């Protein structure tokens, strides 16, 4: 199985944010909001770090 880096990142973020949301919050509404927040944070941080690394000669 070969996934693109972005697909692997999205699946990773989805699963981890689901578990984090269920563990840390008790009410379904809070869980949903926190899960979305963590998921989007994963994506945002990945984009920002990716663009920071882009000009580096690696």
């Amino acid at each position: 199985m070969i996934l693109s880096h972005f697909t692997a990142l999205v699946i990773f973020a989805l699963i981890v944010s689901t578990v984090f949301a269920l563990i840390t919050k008790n009410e379904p509404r809070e869980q949903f909001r926190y899960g979305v927040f963590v998921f989007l944070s994963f994506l945002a941080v990945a984009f920002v770090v990716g663009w920071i690394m882009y000009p580096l000669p690696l």
Partner: protein
Amino acid sequence: MDQANQQVESAPQPAPVEPEAMNMVATLGICSAGWLIPGLAHILIGRWIRGLIFAASVLLMFALGLGMHGKLYDLEFDEPLHVFAFIANIGTGIPYWIAERFNLGIGTMTWPSYDYGTTYLWVCGLLNYLIVLDAFDIAQGRKP
């Protein structure tokens, strides 16, 4: 009127219902079951939906990690730092030993998604540790 208000204010409030704590032996048994089979601890406590979501999350991540040719680490004394990877991997419980038994976690370093697969396998084990700790808190009445 004021007297009536005071009476209402001073009326005894119903005490908040505190969740009952299980005894420690039962709690540790449930946590062990949850470590060996991801999500089982919550199912045994009665949190069916939560348990099934946890089981699906951990097992899906584990299967994807193996599918991406990730590596499962053994306890190797000649490589001391691999102990941390081993501890993360065994967090998955029985699926780890099944995969080891069938030589599924050999890891192909030349495979494009090898690094992602190995990370998936670490993280699903670590998530299962968190899930077991959550079940411990619920069983001990520290969490609703």
